């Protein structure tokens, strides 16, 4: 991964392996956090009626299932797109882009 273009004139520090590692780790952490924000918002709509004095077990189960099914959905779509792309290119090799 080439981060030197994005960092621009930050210079030699960009090639610092410690900094490289730091950027990788923080980017991963941030992806995780971002998806948690997104799924919390989405699942809140599906699982929350009226906020009560505590998160009841029914809602908690709903949130866990919601996360699992959201990831399943994302993987399913990715797989299916991959499949359709494959069969498409097999059938339409003479149809150039």
């Amino acid at each position, binding site marked *: 991964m080439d981060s030197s273009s994005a960092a621009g004139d930050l210079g*030699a520090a960009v090639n610092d392996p410690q900094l490289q590692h*730091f950027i990788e780790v923080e980017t991963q952490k941030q992806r995780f*956090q971002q998806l*948690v924000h997104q799924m919390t918002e989405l699942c809140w709509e599906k699982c929350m009626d009226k906020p009560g004095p505590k*998160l009841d077990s029914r809602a908690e189960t709903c*949130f866990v299932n919601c996360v*699992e099914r959201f*990831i399943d959905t994302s993987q399913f779509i990715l797989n299916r797109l991959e499949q359709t792309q494959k069969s498409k290119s097999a059938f339409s090799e003479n149809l150039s882009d």
Partner: protein
Amino acid sequence: MAAGVGDFGSGGRLDPGVLMEQVKVQIAVANAQELLQRMTDKCFRKCIGKPGSSLDNSEQKCIAMCMDRYMDAWNTVSRAYNSRLQRERANM
């Protein structure tokens, strides 16, 4: 010697340690803002039916409860996602 944002140490040389600390702080601030914004949106929807002339008592109670439940939800989602990642890593 207060190190402001953009002040990357002396001599024009970038101090990676200082830089990393600043990035961490900025990430934490961005995450807090993100949570605040989404929580405000969700709890406004849940608790403010018809905006009146002030935030009345029952609305304030609802918002307080909603905030706590939103944090619970956030933590539950974070845990569920994390355990899913662990499981997938174990299956690779």
